[in-house]
């Protein structure tokens, strides 16, 4: 891949793979009873990460954990305000979340508004016992709502708003993460 000088590698594919394994181990450590656990990937970009974490979890425990995908579009707070058109992606949660312990997974946490709306969207499937948040990249200092991740791959200072984070998914469930300059994308 050809990257110009305005991009910076935040996570190499090998380091990202280690983080995926660490995420799975942290879940095993925190959730003694995996039957209570349900992993929900946020559409669109959190789903790939959630699937990888599921695979790592299965490799360690041989357990099938409840899995779903969630789209937050109908719960956004900027419908008709942002000028953008939001087309929803499928939400697929084939189980009641009532009493379950949920881990929401997204690739990048920035303002926190997506996660806020996702929590609203999740509530229509039942009242979970708890909800935790797992993100590959936490862009700190730009939160607009009080959302804090429980599992973090890497944290970066995002006071420079001219940058954004791009997670590139490669073959074999590998990913690399780049910090890019908005103007030169």
């Amino acid at each position, binding site marked *: 891949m050809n990257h110009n000088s305005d991009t910076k590698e935040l996570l190499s594919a090998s380091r990202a793979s280690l983080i995926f394994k660490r995420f799975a181990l942290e879940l095993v450590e925190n959730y003694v009873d995996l039957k209570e656990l349900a992993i929900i990937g946020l559409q669109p970009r959190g789903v790939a990460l959630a699937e990888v974490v599921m695979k790592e979890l299965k490799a360690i425990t041989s357990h099938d954990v409840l899995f779903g995908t969630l789209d937050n*579009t*109908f*719960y956004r707070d900027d419908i*008709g305000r942002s*000028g953008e*058109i939001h087309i*929803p992606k499928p939400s697929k949660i084939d189980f009641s979340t009532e009493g379950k312990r949920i881990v929401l997974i997204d690739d990048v946490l920035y303002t926190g508004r997506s996660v806020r709306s996702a929590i609203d969207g999740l509530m*229509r*499937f039942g009242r979970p016992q708890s909800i935790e948040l797992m993100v590959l990249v936490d862009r700190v200092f730009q939160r607009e709502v009080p959302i804090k991740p429980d599992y973090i791959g890497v944290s970066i200072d995002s006071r420079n708003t001219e940058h954004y984070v791009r997670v590139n998914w490669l073959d074999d469930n590998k990913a690399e993460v780049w910090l890019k300059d908005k103007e030169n994308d």
Partner: protein
Amino acid sequence: MTEVKQKHLLGIKGMNANQLETIFQTADNFLELLQSPVKKTPALRDVTIANLFFENSTRTRVSFELAEKRLGADVVNFSSSSSSVKKGETLIDTVNNILSMKVDMVVMRHPAPGACRFLSKHIDAQIINAGDGTHEHPTQALLDAFSMRNHFGGSIEGKKVVIVGDIKHSRVAISNIHALRLLGAEVMVCGPSTLIPKNIESLGVKVNTRIEEALEWADVANMLRIQLERQDARFFPSLREYTRLYGLDKNRLDALNKDLLVMHPGPINRGVEISSDVADSGQSIILQQVENGVAVRMAVLFLLAQGNL
């Protein structure tokens, strides 16, 4: 997906296949939402919608109202029978008075063809056509096409659809023809020649006045209601004769020896254009159409509320 911008939904004519697919994709997600225990979203919580019905409607009005409420919008209902229209107020005056109460969207049914387009040129609010005279009924066509698309696993390209009945007075037929042609379906209209408009072939449809041949050709039969309220002249000798020549009953269906999909936009005149045993049979998706109607209307409102369709 191509981004297409449209402030109002006045008719299917002039739209493109990408826009329809965007609506369907959004409606798929609303359909999923409607199956879950909590069927509401707050997406349109700061939007006020006026439903202006200058003509009778049960299904469409209730479907729109439900769609609006499930999106969290504030809703005001208006029907001409209980309003100042009876006192001689003009359409623009009536609507402007309602809009001065800060209404963002207007869903309107009106007996005059083109009433919605006329209104869209004179007021700021977004307009959704819920049926204007014999012109168009876009959301009905969208929900019909959406129902067919879902039944056939995601596409109706190459499917053969016959629309049977009063084509001349039917806004449902015209909107359906536009939508189905955009999506690549073949369309035939069938009915007494007095109820088929001249030059309808110019819309890219076939015409056949013999229902047996039309049903033999088709994968889908959309049976239109005989609109008794629009029959000023006598277009056919009697209802009994219409039923005998164009009604879809069990004998006619069984003679086909294939799984014809049966649809009807409602309200049904049971025993006229369709018999009860066919309307209630496994080949009919009439109630599915009604269920899909709410999801499709939610999709239209949701996309328009974002400023663009």
